[in-house]
């Protein structure tokens, strides 16, 4: 459906996107996961055609011309791209009419979008009076107003409280179920893990690896870690797995359940037991030596 081959984009001396390639099948949700400045937005902007790549090519199936391609793409930009002086209704109407919707058809699309974003009762308020989460939802609804087959979401959850974020996830899951092809950029690994079929890990303009979430974890996540705070420091020479530091036992294992069972069988008393399964965060740490976000 979307073929991206060897994309390069520089801003002066800075190579924001460096030889990025990927292929996305119809109906797939593709995640671009990377820290600030990785080059995610730059990649998105090249795909939609508002930035011209220095090198590389982008092919979108079933679009003979650029204008045709734009008709089948909807974009929810990273910044809120709405007219704050207009009401939600006016924003939706304006963008819908750009795509040639008129009369009843236009009204139907606008109604759908208001319903979808849960803003029907605030439709006649100015966007400047909306909360951050409401603006995000409208930003997404505008992207969908012309019924695109491909949806590009650039960090759609930035600055949104957990409840609104959940609402947004549900919206996106609904779209996914309807068969839209989605490209989703984020620096929240939970989002990528929850929503994406395929994830590309991006840093410094490069795609470091690309696979399903499970695949990535398998190749780069390493072992699970069990950390146990023991009741009593073990006697010297006790036969315990892993490494011991005072009363803290740390076990790296591929089969954490078996390890916990074995601790139980040995009647070892502990205050707390923590199990850390590898996740995309671990994957990123392994790939770059850094965390996704500086907490």
């Amino acid at each position: 459906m979307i073929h991206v081959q060897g994309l390069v984009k520089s801003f002066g001396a800075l190579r924001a996107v460096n030889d990025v390639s990927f292929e996305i099948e119809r109906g797939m949700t593709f995640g671009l996961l990377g820290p600030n400045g990785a080059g995610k937005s730059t990649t998105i902007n090249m795909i939609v055609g508002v930035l011209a790549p220095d090198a590389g090519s982008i092919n979108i199936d079933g679009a003979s011309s650029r204008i045709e391609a734009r008709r089948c793409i909807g974009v929810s930009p990273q910044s809120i791209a709405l007219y704050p002086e207009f009401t939600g209704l006016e924003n939706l109407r304006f963008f819908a009419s750009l795509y040639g919707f008129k009369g009843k058809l236009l009204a139907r699309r606008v109604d759908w979008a208001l319903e979808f974003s849960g803003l029907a009762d605030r439709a006649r308020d100015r966007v400047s009076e909306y909360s951050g989460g409401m603006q995000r939802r409208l930003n997404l609804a505008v992207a969908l107003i012309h019924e695109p087959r491909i949806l590009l979401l650039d960090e759609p959850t930035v600055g949104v409280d957990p409840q609104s974020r959940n609402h947004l996830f549900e919206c996106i899951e609904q779209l996914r179920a309807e068969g839209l092809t989605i490209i989703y950029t984020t620096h929240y690994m939970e989002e990528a893990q929850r929503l994406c079929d395929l994830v590309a890990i991006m840093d410094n303009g490069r795609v470091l690896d690309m696979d399903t979430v499970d695949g990535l974890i398998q190749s780069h996540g390493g072992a699970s870690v069990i950390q146990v705070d023991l009741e009593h420091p073990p006697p010297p020479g006790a036969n315990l797995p892993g490494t011991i530091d005072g009363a803290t036992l740390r076990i790296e294992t591929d089969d954490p359940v078996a390890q916990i069972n074995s601790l139980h069988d040995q009647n070892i008393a502990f205050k707390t037991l923590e199990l850390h399964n590898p996740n995309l965060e671990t994957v990123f740490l392994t790939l770059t030596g850094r965390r996704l976000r500086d907490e």
Partner: protein
Amino acid sequence: MNNILTMAKKDLLLLWRDKFGVFWILLFPLMFALFFGSIFGGGNGGGSSGMDVAFVDLDNTEHSRRFITLLGEKDAIDLEQPPEGAPWTVETAKEAVLSGDAVAYVVLPEGFGGAGGMAMFTGNTPEVEVGVDPSRTAEKGFLEGLLMEASFRRLQDSFADPVSMRPDIAQMKQDVLADQDMGDQWRSTLMTFFDSLDTFAGMADEAIQTEEESGGDASEAPDMSPIKIRHEDVVKRSSGPLNAYEISFPQAIIWGIIGAAAGLAMMLVQEKTRGTWVRLRLGPHTTAQILASKGLSCFAACIITIVLLLFVGHLVLGVRVGSWIGLAMAVASSAACFTGLMMIFATLGKTEQAVAGWAWGGMMPMAMLGGGMVPLMMMPSWMQTMSNISPVKWAVYSMEGAIWRGFTLEKMLLPCFILLAIGLAGFLFGVVVLSRREG
């Protein structure tokens, strides 16, 4: 095409929603026009209520001077002072009317004061020349009426001052006797009349004092007008502003359309900083079409601004429209010019503040130089020449041309052409630069 209209409509609505912008585009200019229009005298030609008349006194006698002073005391007439202190000559007075400094000139011929205003009885009725623009029929009729009235007054004054009349009567009796062409019948009638007049002058001053109060009895002698009036049509080169609003409105319009152009240039950049530009770019139209919509919205905003301001000026404050077609040309080409300027402003900065700074900072001196502050007609001539480099000058000039300068359509062509050329060049420059930035 539909999308161009949709986007332009959206821009106009956004502009309207920006109350601060509306203030600069409509309210401030209106205040400007009212303020400067009223402090420079508002209606009726710069502070005085009378019409300016240049009196050429070729007679230069006690009588003629009194005649002029008498007329000058009327509210309806202001004595236009001759330039550089020299008395008016027929040539300088005519020039004053041609250039619009005076509404009319009046020539009192040599011998005007002779015979104390009674020269008509001897067939030597003085011929007064009145030069006025043929289009100003009301002023012409009014002025002639006043001249007639004053000459009858003069005649009456002579009756009121019988002692001073007696030498004149003696002089006239001599004239009548000396006139070979005069019929005997008429000669003897006049001699009888002068004799009885002389007697009357010697004894009847009390009675005539009261006669003066009733005024204008003499007008019952239609064939005996004390003066003859000869018309001279003087077609003005330019008609000059009739009231100060005719100056202040074109100026105010300039501020309004600077506001509109600056506001829309800011909005264009704002689309980029807000990210709505990306959405527009994603729509099913070309970048050139988006830019065309920007041009269209600016053009429309300028037209609306000008029309609204002129509407108030014309209907409420008596701003004339010399030529409707000329005005339409001036309005359209001024709007086109500022549309081009808007596109240039939009290329000058990447933030709203930068664009606003460039737009206002660049237009302020252009407006001052071009007659947006000091009216063009009040500028010294070197400055008028220098103002040619300012687009504002041509906008003001074209509107003034259609309002009071009495430009023919042919004369409108030059300023309109310059405005259109600036507009087109600016627009093309903006389109090229802005599309190139899209990479």
